[in-house]
C-alpha cells in the first residue's frame, strides 16, 4: 500500500491506496470525482486528462503514488464557483460536445494548450495539439472552433485585466 497526499481542486486529501492504483482511479473511486473519464487502456483517448502541477496529464498514465505531493485540478475544479472557465463556456457556446464523455479531457487539454500558446492559436495548431484526445461525436469541427474562440477570449480577458 502507498500513502498519498495531494491537493485536489484546492482541497488537501490523504489516503492509503494499493500501489498499482492509477491517478484516474484514485480521483474517481476514492474522491468520487467522476468527471474524469476512462475511455481506453492505452493512453490514447485523453478522456482522463487533468492538470498536475499546472500541466495537462493523462491521469491513466500515472500512479496515484507518483502524484503524491502534487497539486491537481480536475474538470470539477476548473470553474470559479458559478462562473464557467472561458474554455467551458466556449465549448457550450460553440456546441463543442455531444455525448459529453470526452469533454472533460478535451477541456482540460484545451486549457493547457491555450496556456502554452500565449501568442495565440490557429486551426492547424489546435488540430495538431488535439492529437491525444479522441472524440467520436463532433468530428472535432466545433471543438476546434470552441478552442480558437476561448483562446481569443482569454487573450482579450488577459489584456483587459492588464489594463
Amino acid at each position, binding site marked *: 500500500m502507498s500513502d498519498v497526499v495531494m491537493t485536489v481542486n484546492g482541497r488537501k486529501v490523504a489516503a492509503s491506496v*494499493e500501489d*498499482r492504483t492509477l491517478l484516474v482511479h484514485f480521483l*474517481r473511486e476514492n474522491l*468520487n*470525482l*467522476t*468527471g*474524469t*473519464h*476512462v*475511455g*481506453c*487502456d*492505452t493512453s*490514447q*483517448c485523453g*478522456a482522463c486528462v487533468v492538470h498536475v502541477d499546472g500541466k495537462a496529464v493523462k491521469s491513466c498514465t500515472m500512479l496515484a503514488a507518483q502524484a503524491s505531493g502534487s497539486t491537481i485540478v*480536475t*474538470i*470539477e475544479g*476548473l*470553474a470559479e464557483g458559478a462562473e*464557467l472557465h472561458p474554455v*467551458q463556456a466556449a*465549448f*457550450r*457556446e460553440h*456546441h463543442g*460536445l*455531444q*455525448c*459529453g*464523455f*470526452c*469533454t*472533460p479531457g478535451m*477541456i482540460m487539454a484545451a486549457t493547457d494548450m491555450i496556456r502554452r500558446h500565449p501568442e495565440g492559436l490557429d*486551426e*492547424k495548431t*489546435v*488540430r*495538431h495539439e*488535439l*492529437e491525444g*484526445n*479522441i*472524440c*467520436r*461525436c*463532433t*468530428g*472535432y*469541427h*466545433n*471543438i*476546434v*472552433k470552441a478552442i480558437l474562440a476561448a483562446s481569443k477570449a482569454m487573450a482579450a480577458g488577459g489584456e483587459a485585466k492588464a489594463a
Partner: protein
Amino acid sequence: MGMEGIGARVARKEDKRFITGGGRYTDDMVLPGMKHAVFVRSPHAHADIKGIDVAEAKDMPGVVDVLTGRQLKADGVGNLICGWMIHSKDGSPMKMGAWSPLAVDRVRYVGDAVAIVVADTKGQARDAAEKVVVEYDEKDAVIVAAEALKPGAPQLHPEAENNLIFDWELGDAKATDEALAKAAHITKMHIVNNRLVPNAMEPRAALAHYDKAEDHTTCWTTSQNPHVARLVMSAFYNIAPENKLRVIAPDVGGGFGSKIFIYPEEVVCCWASKKTGVPVKWVADRTESFLTDAHGRDHVSEVQMAFDADNRIIGLKVDTIANFGAYMSLFSSSVPTYLYATLLSGQYAIPAIHANVRAVYTNTSPVDAYRGAGRPEATYLVERTMETAARELGVSPAELRRKNFVTQFPHQTPVIMCYDAGDYAASLDAAMQAADYAGFPARREEAKRRGKLRGIGMSNYIEACGIAPSAAVGSLGAGVGLWESAEVRVNAVGTIEVLTGSHSHGQGHETTFAQLVNQRFGVPIDSVSIVHGDTDKVQMGMGTYGSRSGAVGMSAIVKALDKVEAKAKKIAAHLMEADESDIVIENGELKVAGTDKSVPWFQLALAAYTAHNLPAGMEPGLKETAFYDPSNFTFPAGCYICEVEVDPDTGVTEIIQFVAADDFGNIINPMIVEGQVHGGIAQGIGQSMLEGAHYDAGSGQLITASYMDYCMPRADDLPSFQVSHQNTPCPGNPLGIKGCGEAGAIGSPPAVINAITDAIGNNDLLMPATPERVWAAIHVAKH
C-alpha cells in the same frame, strides 16, 4: 421563430453538467456493497470447451464468486436472440445458432464470454480471472464470409449448414436480367464495404442490483433503448418479469448503434447479482469493447448497373455477401436486408432492381447496426458505381446523376420504398456551388504544378429513417413495433416535464424537445425538463436509432402536446367565459382572440390542479400521454462533395474541402443538426481513409483491438466542413422532420473514394484508403 422555439440555435441545456464534470454515466454509479465483475473470455476464435476449473480463482483475495455458463443454463437464463425474422428465397426461416450469454460447450470468436468473476475490487476480479483455467480444444476458424460458404469450411453452428444464415432476395430478377440484356452500357463493380468498430467513447457497462426482499432487479446500463432492453431481458432471457425489472440508461457516452443491442454482459450481471446477493458492476475496457461491441458493415458485393443509349439507368443487379460474425446480434438480420436493399434505388428512377443477399457466420465479433446500418453500404455501392459509370461513359458525374434523379413525388421504387418528398437537384446545385465545382480544373492544374494530384468526387445519398410504421416493419419481420411514446406533465405551477421513450446519448434531446414545448406554450426552456432513459419513469419507448428521435419521438410529444393544449383551451374558455374556439396561446398566455382577456400559463395550470372551477365533468390535472406510429419511413437526402490532394511520393491524402448539402426536412435546432452532420462525416471519412477491423486469417485474432492499432479519426485527420440545408418538409409527420443523425456517415465514404480515385487515376482502391494503398494504386496505374 421565437428565441427558444423551433428553428432557434439554442445552446444546449444538458451541456452544463457535461462541461463541469457533472455527467452521470453508468460507471459513475456506486451502490452500497457493490462488487466488480470481470469476464473470462475466449482467447481462441473457435474451440470446444473441455472443462473449466474455477477452484483457484475462487480462493483469490476478495473474490465473491466465479460463475460459468453451465450454472447460467441451469438457472434457466435464455439464449440471446435476433429479433428480426428474415426468410430465405426458398421460404425457409433464417438459421439462428444458439448464443448462450456465457459459452457452455463451444467458443466461436475471440472475446466470447466464458465465465464471470465477481470480487471486491476490479483489480482483484482481474487477478482472479487470470486464475480461471479453461481447457480448450482448438478448432479451425474462418474469418472471411466468402470462405465460410465454401465446401469444407469450418462449421460454426449445427443450425446453419455451410454457415449460411439466409439467402434472401428483393426485387424482380427477371426484369433486371432483361434490362442487363438490352443495355447499351453496363458498369460492373466489385464493392467491399470494410468492417468497422463503432467505438463510442464511453465503453459499455452494466450495474445490476437484485433486491431480494422485493424480488426486483435494477440494471443501469449503457443503452440507446432501455425499454427494449427490459422487454427482451424479460420476455426472452428470463431475467425477471417486466414489473420486476427496471432498466436505467443514464448519461450514455455515444452509441452509434452499438448500444442498441442487448449483450451478454448486462444479462449475466443481472443474473450474477441475484446469484451472489450483491450489486455487480462491469465496465468494459477498450480492448473488450473492440472485441465484443457489435461491429458494423463487412459487405462484399458484385454490382452491375445497366444504362440505355441515352445514359439512363435501366437496371441494377446486386449480389451481396454479409458477414454476421459468430452469432446473430439483436437486429443483425435487418441491416443487410430491409435497411440496405430497399435503398439501392438511390436518388434515381431505376425501373428494375434485383438484390441477392447471403448472410454468413464467421469466427468474428457479431455484426449489427452501426451509424447508417445498411444505408451506408447501399449508398457506397450506388454512388461508387455512378461515379465509375460517368467515367466510363465520358460524361460529367453530376450530369449523369441529374439525368437519372427522381423528380416526381411520391415515387415508388422497385424495392419497397415510396419516397415522399425531396429535391435532389437543389442539394446537388448547392453543393456544387459551395465547392466551386466549376473552378476545379484550374485547381487541379495548379496542384499539378506543385507535384500534387488533385481529385474531386461526389455522392448523392438517400436514406430511410424512423424505421416505421410498425405494421410495415412487422410485415417485413420485425419482432417489435417501432412507434414512440411520450407523456407531457404540466405541473401545478406551470413548469413542464416531458417523458420520452427516445434516449439521448449525445443528440441534445433535452434541448430540442424543450424547444418544441416552448414553441407551443411559450414556456421558457429552463422550465421544461426532459425525462428519459428510465423504465420506471417513462411509460414505454422504443429508443433512439435510425435517426428516429425527431421524426418519431418528437411526433409522439406533439400528439401529447395536442391533447394538453385542447384541455388547456377548454379550461381557459371556461375561466374567461369564452368560446373554446376563440382561445389562442401567445407568449405564455391563453387569450381570447380579439379581446384583452387572458390567463397566464401558470395560472391555467394551477386552475387545472386546484380544480375549484373546471368545466362540468372535467377531470382535474393537466397531463397527457400519446403513442405515435408514423405512416411511412422518412427520406433524408443530400449531396456531398469531397476534394482531395494526394502526394504521389507518399500516398498521403489531404482533404482540401468537404461540402455537405442536406435535406433533412424541417429543423428544430440548426446548431445541433450541423453537429450531427459533422460527426457523421468524420465517421465516414474514418471508414474511407483510416478505420478497419482486421483479423488474422489463420488464428482469428482481432489485430486492431486497441487505439494503438485501430486508426480513429483525430482532429488533424479532418478538415472543417461546409454544411448547408435545402429542406423539403416531410409530409409524413406533424413536424415535417426527416432526421439527420446518420446522413454524414452514409453520404461521405463514396465522396471521399470517388475523389481519391479521381486524383490518382485508378478506380481500384479499397477502404480504408491508407497512404500505403493509395501509393500502391498510383504505382499500379503508372505501370
